[in-house]
C-alpha cells in the first residue's frame, strides 16, 4: 500500500528531513514511526500525503507513483489518504458536523449520503450529540476525535496520524490508540508518528524507528 524506495527529502533550507529511507507497508498493515525530534517522522508522513514531494527516490501509495502524479491530481490523491494532526487543524468558524463533512463536501457527495456518513463517523469516535457544537467548546481530546472523524469519514484506504496524542493525558492517549486499532481491524492501512515509545511498545505493532532521516530500526522489515 505504501512503499518508499530510497527516499530523500531536502528542504529549501538545505536541511535533509529524510536521507534515504526504504520501507513497505502492506494493505491493512499498521505501523508506528518513532524517533527523536527532528528525526524525520513528520517529513515521512508529509511525503505520503503529498504535503511535500520527495527530492530523491520514489514514493508509491495505493499503486501510484507519487513522483509522477500531476499537480492537478494531488487533491484526488489526498482523498485517499486521511490525515490527522497534533493541532487538529479544525475550522473554528464551523460546527463539528461541518468540519467532519468537509472531505465529503469537497468530493461532491450528495446531501443525504453526507448526513449518513458523518453520523456514522461521529458514532465511531463517540461524539454523537456534539455535532452542533463548535470546536472551541470541546476539550482537547474531543477536538482530536473530531479531527479523527474527519479523516475517516470518507473511508480512505490509508490513514496517517502525526503525533495524534501529543497533547493528551495517558488515559486519553490510550483511548485514541484503541480507536486506531479498531480502524486497522476493518482494513485501513495506518501509519502513526509518535514520541510515546512506551505506549506504542505495549500495542505490539510494527515500529519504524528513525534517526536523522534514516531508518534506524524497523521491527516489520523483511529479514
Amino acid at each position: 500500500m505504501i512503499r518508499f524506495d530510497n527516499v530523500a527529502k531536502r528542504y529549501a533550507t538545505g536541511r535533509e528531513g529524510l536521507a534515504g529511507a526504504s520501507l513497505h507497508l502492506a494493505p491493512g498493515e499498521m505501523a508506528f514511526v518513532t524517533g527523536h525530534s527532528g528525526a524525520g517522522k513528520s517529513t515521512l508522513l508529509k511525503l505520503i500525503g503529498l504535503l511535500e514531494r520527495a527530492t530523491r527516490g520514489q514514493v508509491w501509495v495505493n499503486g501510484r507513483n507519487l513522483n509522477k502524479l500531476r499537480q492537478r491530481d494531488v487533491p484526488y490523491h489526498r482523498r485517499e489518504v486521511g490525515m490527522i494532526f497534533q493541532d487538529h487543524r479544525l475550522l473554528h468558524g464551523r460546527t463539528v458536523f461541518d468540519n467532519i463533512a468537509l472531505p465529503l463536501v469537497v468530493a461532491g457527495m450528495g446531501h443525504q449520503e453526507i448526513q449518513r456518513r458523518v453520523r456514522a463517523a461521529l458514532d465511531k469516535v463517540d461524539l454523537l450529540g456534539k455535532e452542533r457544537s463548535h470546536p472551541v467548546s470541546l476539550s482537547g481530546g474531543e477536538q482530536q476525535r473530531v479531527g479523527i472523524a474527519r479523516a475517516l469519514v470518507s473511508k480512505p484506504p490509508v490513514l496517517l496520524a502525526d503525533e495524534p496524542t501529543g497533547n493528551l493525558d495517558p488515559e486519553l492517549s490510550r483511548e485514541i490508540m484503541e480507536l486506531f486499532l479498531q480502524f486497522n481491524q476493518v482494513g485501513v492501512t495506518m501509519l502513526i508518528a509518535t514520541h510515546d515509545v512506551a505506549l506504542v511498545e505495549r500495542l505490539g505493532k510494527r515500529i519504524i524507528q528513525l534517526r536523522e532521516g534514516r531508518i534506524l530500526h524497523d521491527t516489520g522489515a523483511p529479514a
Partner: protein
Amino acid sequence: MTGKARRKAKQPGFRRNRNPVTWLLRHAQMALAALGRLAQQPLGTLMTAAVIGIAIALPSGLYLLVNNVRDLTGSWDGGSSISLFLNQSLSDQQARGVREVIARRDDVAEARLISRQQALKEFRQRSGFGEALDLLDHNPLPAVILVRPSRIASSALATERLAKTLEGFREIDLVRVDLQWVRRLEAITRTLERGILVLSGLLSAAVLLIVGNTIRLEIQNRHNEIEVVKLVGATDAFIRRPFLYEGVWYGLLGALIAILLVTAGLGLMQDPVQRLAGLYQSGFDLDILTSGALLTILTGGPLLGLLGAWLAVGRHLSRIQPE
C-alpha cells in the same frame, strides 16, 4: 504507444465523482454562502460596491447623454437642410407638384416651396438691388424647395444620400446641401464617444483592481480555511469558486448602484435639458436607461467582478499550500 500513454496505463486513474444535480446544488449553495459572507460586513461590502457603481455609472451616464444629444440633432430645426433649385421652365403648378412628391418621402420631414415670385420679392427686400432687377424683362430667380430631412436621414451621410437622390429629379437643376452644423455635431459626438471609450477602459481596469484587491484580502483572511480544505482534497476549482462568486456579487451590486446613480443623474438633468430643447423649438424628453443599456450594465458589472476575482485568485491561491 506514446510514452505519455504508457505512463497513464501504468498509473491507475482516480475516480471522479460528478453527479450533475449535486454539483448544481453545491454551486447554488456556494453562491448564496458568498452573498451571506458579503452581508456579514454590510458596510465594507457597500463601500466596495459603491466604488464599483460609480466607476460603472460614469461612462454609462456619459454614453447615454451623448446618445441623447445625437438623437437631438434629428429633432432640431436646422439640423441639416437641402435647397433644391427648380428648373426655370417649371410652372408654379408643376413646382407645387414637385414639392408634394418630395414632402411625401419618409426621409423628408418638411419641404417648403419658395415660388419664383416670392423669391423675387425676398431678394428685392433683402438685397436692395430692386431697381437693377426692374431692368430685366423677366424674373431671373428659380423657384426653391427647402427640404429638412427627417430623423432617419439626419446624419451627414444619410442627408447626402437624400441629396443625391433628389439630384436625379428632372425638374431639379441644382441641389445644395448645408451640412456644416451636422458635420460639426457628428464630429463632436464622435470625439465624446471615443473619450467615453477610453474612460470606460480605465474605469473597467479600476473595477478589476478594486475587486481583485478585495478578494485578495478575503483570501488572506481565509488562509487557514483554504489550507484545511486543501488538506482534505479540495481541487483548485472548488477553492476558487466561492471567491469567484464573491466577485460576481460585488459586480452585480455595483451594477445595481450604477443604475440607480445613472437614473438619478438623468432625472436631475431632465428639466434643464427640456429648457434647452425648448430654446431650439423642439420638444424633447431625455431618454432614461434603455433596456439595452440596462442589460449591458447588468451583465458587464458581474463579468468585471468575475474577472477581477479570477485574477486575484489565480495569483494568490496557489501560494497557499498546507504543511
